[in-house]
């Protein structure tokens, strides 16, 4: 299946583009998607602990199963205000 990964701020700079399509096996979780991304961009490993994930606009745990067409946002710590 294919999911769209959205990246922001420092993570976007590491990945080099704001949006990226990942091809994942059926049944893959959000953590699987993160690991696929971190495998490609080793600099992400250092910030895994402070990064949150959201699917289609709602926060999820790494254990959440993804579906074809999901939008997975990879969110570094917020700095608005």
């Amino acid at each position, binding site marked *: 299946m294919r999911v769209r990964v*959205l990246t922001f701020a420092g993570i*976007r700079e590491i990945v080099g583009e704001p949006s990226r399509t990942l091809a994942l096996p059926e049944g893959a979780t959000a953590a699987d998607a993160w690991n696929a991304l971190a495998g490609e961009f080793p600099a992400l490993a250092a910030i895994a602990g402070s990064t949150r994930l959201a699917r289609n606009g709602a926060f999820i745990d790494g254990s959440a199963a993804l579906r074809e067409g999901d939008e997975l946002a990879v969110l570094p710590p917020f*700095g608005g205000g």
Partner: protein
Amino acid sequence: MKYEITREPLDPQSLLDAVRSDECGAIVTFLGVVRVMGDGDRPVDGLAYEAYPEMALPEMRAIGAEASSRFGEARVAIAHRIGDLALGEVSVAIAVASKHRAVAFDACEYVIDELKQRVPIWKRENYRDGETRWRPNASPHA
């Protein structure tokens, strides 16, 4: 009332107009302004903000609704700017109108505190020496 993420300069007056009503005797506003020292001790030339609007706007609405139910009835408007901001420019504007002032003060402070923790917006400090850094907000429990 009015919830907005925009690249245009913020207009505090339009937020006042969005929240005022014949029932409200008090309006409290908060403006976040780009200051030379940023959040740290290094002088900045300006900031850049980036948002995930599809998630940020619903979260801003949720915070506004919470503020109104927690402290007493209040009318809330929130606008956040994104893109490049120079010194002195307004990054966030919040207006809260209520019948009485204590509610308006409490609700306005709640909104900015929660916004900094919960709304997916990011800030890059552009230092005078040319370096840049994405700078997260401090945790309230730090």
